[in-house]
């Protein structure tokens, strides 16, 4: 891992930390009242705040997990070079797409 990947991972982690805390707090609150799709959607649908909240998380986590898994792939499976780059990008973009769709689903669509 060089300094660019390192910074990407640490900075994304820093961004995520408060979001994860927030998310857990909401979940604790939410499960108390028993979660349903309607309940979730009721909270989040149409809210630009929630869109930004989860959107940022998805962006950060895509970067963070891509770098994280990249390191593990390299260290434990010995994957290197272009294959490694390709895989990392695939993980990052994959997460971004999946996550993006999920956020849109619960907020705007």
């Amino acid at each position, binding site marked *: 891992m060089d*300094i660019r990947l390192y910074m990407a991972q*640490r900075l994304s982690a820093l961004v995520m930390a408060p979001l994860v805390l927030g998310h857990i707090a909401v979940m604790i609150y939410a499960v108390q009242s028993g979660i349903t799709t309607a309940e979730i959607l009721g909270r989040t649908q149409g809210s630009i705040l929630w869109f930004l909240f989860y959107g940022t998380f998805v962006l950060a986590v895509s970067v963070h997990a891509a770098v994280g898994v990249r390191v593990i792939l*390299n*260290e434990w499976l010995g994957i290197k070079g272009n294959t490694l780059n390709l895989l990392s990008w695939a993980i990052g973009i994959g997460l971004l797409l999946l996550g993006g769709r999920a956020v849109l689903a619960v907020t705007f669509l």
Partner: protein
Amino acid sequence: MEVKAEFLNVTVSRGSGDGVYQEAFQVPAYDNQTVLDVVSWIQQNVDPTLTYRFACRVGMCGSCAMMVNGQPRWTCRTHVKKVSTNQKLKIEPLRNLPVIKDLVADMDPFFGKWVEAEGVHHPTRTRYEPIEQIDPQDAARTTANEGIECINCAVCYAACDTVTNNADYLGPAALQRAWTVYNDVKDADKSAILDAVSGKGGCHSCHSIGSCTHYCPNELNPMQAIAGLKRATSKSFFKKGR
């Protein structure tokens, strides 16, 4: 007079490459016996072809390190009693380095990385100028001093799982040396050091596993030094954007 009617059951790793095998020996147990003494006894008395490395025999040269019961140790200063339970010893060459033969590891990659990490002084003055006055209590100096007594024994290098997993990783000793040079007020090229430790196998590959610090026989703290490098490189990253 010192001889007890006791024996150590010692398993020694032999050969190199594909031909590595384990061989068992019975070695008489003595007081004050070190692991190096055990290995020497075998070579001097029963198997003249056993190969190992040592020089100073007092923990200064860092050439006698081996794996003892699975843990990296300087063997000349490791008392048998300290590492053996039930009179059993398993001795192997240092982990994470190529094996030359039996218990001797090739240390070239270790020293190659030492130089690669810019663990080398970059002079600010010449022999024709007076020696710089440096306050020994100065913060940077104190930091530099913390890692200065490294004997490059590669025990930390053998202990680190990241070294095992990542061939490019410079490893704890080289990075600690880089950090020491970086903090040396006499050093002229700090940015060369930061560049050297910011690449693919640089300080950022360290996961703070801490085995280096745990095993260093001189009680140095490479993990802390590497954290220092991460801090310094991060700072310069924000300042210079690279």
